[in-house]
């Protein structure tokens, strides 16, 4: 190729040419570096940052929704992308389509950031957590079929409560496809199997092993699931994001199974206790009733006795009273007879006394009677029925009647002197 063979092209053609060539020659890149100058534009939809090491830095660009985990300046990351030029400015950059935190420190940092973000959004809110059914008839298990986590879970379920059905939807729990697998497992459970409760579990591991259980995507799917989910991850770490968003958090796979079903022995004990309670209450109630009956009957018999006593006393009194009446009658009769006798005597004495008095009175009366005076020669003169005592009692020509000791005389007044 010689200079004279070159043809002029436009700026935009130049940019296109270099971009295409870069992508053809260099292709996909995986770059490790430190994030710096992180900023978002166009209402948080575009993400710009630089990736640097101790000698160089390159501009990076990606769409915000492609970012699955939180990053910040200073974080060591692994970037997946390809080289490109901006169409407008022709500036070189890496078009990033995936970022992973790199190293335990960066992962830890990323985890903290994700946790903070989801916490702010209320995904860990205790009020959003649902209670588990006491006796689940079906239990969905999402885990790796070959893992110890699965056999542990099944063993505990069999020992404690073999009356449910355990339904496994196998899933990768580690590596790149794990997040999508786990989310798909929840989809299958929610849409097709519809168990009463879901156990999402895996054994322990380091922070990198547990990355899928710390993913924001899985956290959001657990949060949106209509069926309560128990998350049980091996206890090497304190927590995973999935633990925090779960309805119930278990320390291990076995612990998840323990939390999901009761132990049959405990239920037998509980049943016995309930029956004991029923018996106790029934006995108490019967005792109360019999006590009440006893009290009522003794009250009744007491009343009866009292009535009977009173009745008997009354009877006795009645009969005693009868005797008394007869006695008293007799007594009174005697008294009456006696009194009568005395009275009679008294009366006869009084009568004879009165007789005497009467005779005396008669004598006195006789002595003081006008007729007795008339016998001495006196007479009584009456004018029209009235005794004439003075000349004023008469007028001339009045006819006077004169009572004598024997007979009467009518006379006319001739002259008043």
């Amino acid at each position, binding site marked *: 190729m010689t200079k004279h063979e070159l043809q002029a092209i436009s700026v935009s053609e130049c940019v296109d040419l270099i971009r295409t060539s870069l992508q053809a020659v260099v292709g996909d890149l995986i770059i490790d570096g430190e994030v710096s100058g992180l900023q978002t534009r166009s209402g948080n939809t575009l993400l710009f940052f630089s990736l640097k090491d101790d000698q160089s830095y390159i501009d990076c660009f990606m769409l915000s929704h492609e970012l699955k985990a939180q990053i910040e300046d200073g974080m060591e990351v692994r970037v997946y992308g390809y080289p490109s030029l901006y169409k407008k400015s022709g500036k070189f950059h890496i078009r990033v389509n995936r970022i992973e935190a790199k190293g335990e420190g960066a992962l830890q940092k990323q985890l903290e950031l994700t946790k903070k973000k989801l916490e702010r959004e209320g995904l860990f809110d205790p009020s959003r957590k649902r209670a588990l059914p006491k006796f689940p008839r079906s239990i969905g298990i999402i885990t790796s079929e070959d893992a110890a986590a699965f056999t542990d879970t099944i063993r505990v379920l069999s020992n404690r409560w073999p009356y449910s059905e355990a*339904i496994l939807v196998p899933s990768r729990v580690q590596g790149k496809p794990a997040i999508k697998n786990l989310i798909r497992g929840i989809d299958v459970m929610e849409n097709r199997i519809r168990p009463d409760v879901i156990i999402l579990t895996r054994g322990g591991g380091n922070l990198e092993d547990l990355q899928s259980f710390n993913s924001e995507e899985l956290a959001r799917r657990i949060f949106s699931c209509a069926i309560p989910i128990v998350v049980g991850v091996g206890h090497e770490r304190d927590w995973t994001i999935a633990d925090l968003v779960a309805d119930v958090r278990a320390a291990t796979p076995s612990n998840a199974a323990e939390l999901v079903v009761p132990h049959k022995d405990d239920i037998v004990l509980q*049943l016995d206790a309930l029956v004991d309670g029923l018996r106790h209450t029934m006995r108490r109630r019967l005792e109360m*009733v019999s006590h009440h009956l006893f009290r009522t009957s003794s009250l009744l018999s007491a009343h009866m006795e009292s009535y009977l006593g009173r009745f008997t006393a009354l009877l006795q009194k009645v009969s005693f009273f009868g005797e008394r009446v007869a006695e008293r009658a007799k007594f009174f009769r005697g008294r009456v007879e006696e009194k009568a006798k005395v009275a009679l005597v008294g009366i006869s004495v009084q009568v004879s006394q009165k007789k005497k008095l009467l005779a005396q009175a008669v004598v006195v009366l006789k002595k003081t009677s006008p007729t007795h005076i008339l016998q001495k020669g006196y007479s009584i003169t009456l004018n029209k029925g009235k005794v004439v005592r003075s000349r004023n009692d008469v007028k001339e020509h009045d006819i006077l009647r004169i009572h004598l000791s024997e007979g009467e005389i009518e006379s006319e007044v001739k002259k008043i002197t």
Partner: protein
Amino acid sequence: MTKKIEKSFAEQFEELEKITQQFESQEDVDLDESVKQFERGLEIAQELKKRLSDVELKVRRIQEKFNTADEN
């Protein structure tokens, strides 16, 4: 154990708990009614215990293509 029976285990257990609670909290209750509740409680408890016989956990595996699919 079928789903139906398992469901009724929860329901019956709840019923027994309810009966016991009611039974213990009520005072001045008719003796005939007491005896009825008591006998119903014992009956349910017996049925529940019968269900707790020795059985093996039923395990079902859902085989899905996505299990091994290496999706991004």
